[in-house]
């Protein structure tokens, strides 16, 4: 069976669900997703960026820490998270905050990964929960800033009314 491509759905106002299958037992998928030297192999950074730090301790209260460096001096982005749930090979939940070089947060979410397998094929379901519909829409639109997408929609409605 060929792995099924990435499916993205938005079942509620504040969530995004990503589903993907992998041609491997869930034990291996879990290992690839939680072991830092393996994470570095597939967590490709944006073009021109490198992974400077990659730490992952997939246990309750364990932390997740990623730092990326850009090609230009001083360019840096980070992701910090804490695991709130970890059932080995089955299910894990962690918080996630994206941080600027200055430490200022620019977005946060809670992410749950669920793994099930059948006949050596693993289905992974990632549920991302955002703080608001506004932020979730921004993540879906990928290119709109926090508040922008929703804002432009409101503006459109406002303009339509005032005509």
């Amino acid at each position: 069976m060929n792995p099924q491509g990435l499916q993205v759905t938005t079942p509620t106002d504040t969530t995004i669900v990503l589903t993907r299958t992998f041609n491997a037992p869930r034990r291996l998928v879990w290992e690839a997703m939680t072991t830092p030297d393996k994470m570095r192999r597939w967590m490709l950074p944006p073009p021109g960026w490198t992974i400077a730090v990659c730490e992952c301790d997939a246990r309750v209260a364990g932390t997740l820490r990623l730092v990326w460096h850009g090609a230009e001096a001083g360019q840096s982005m980070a992701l910090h998270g804490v695991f709130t749930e970890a059932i080995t090979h089955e299910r894990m939940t962690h918080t996630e905050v994206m941080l600027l070089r200055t430490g200022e947060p620019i977005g946060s979410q809670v992410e749950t990964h669920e793994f099930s397998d059948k006949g050596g094929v693993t289905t992974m379901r990632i549920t991302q929960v955002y703080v608001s519909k506004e932020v979730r829409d921004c993540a879906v639109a990928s290119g709109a800033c926090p508040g922008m997408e929703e804002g432009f929609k409101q503006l459109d409605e406002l303009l339509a009314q005032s005509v």
Partner: protein
Amino acid sequence: MVLDRSSRLDLVFHALAHPARRAIIRQLSGGERNLSELASPLKMTFPAATKHVRVLERARLVRRRIAGREHLCRLHAGPLKEATLWTEQFRKNWEARFEALDALLEEMKTEERTRARCR
């Protein structure tokens, strides 16, 4: 003022972090507005609104021109695009990452089979 690209990015993200400044950007996306037009829907004083506009100006998201007694502001979208590029690239990369993960998993399966045979 000369700033490296990352500091400019910091200014833009900082500017966008405040709801009042996002509201100003929303208003300006409809066209040029003067300062009192920007201040009134925010239910804030004129000086408070002016302060927010200055933060947006520093991030080069807003440009201001003076016409008689009026200060007219307009949106400058260039820095906004730069700021969103990173997160955009990060998120759009998901499928590419999962393909890299597919390749890694194949390797891991092969390693396991090799180990099992050696035992």
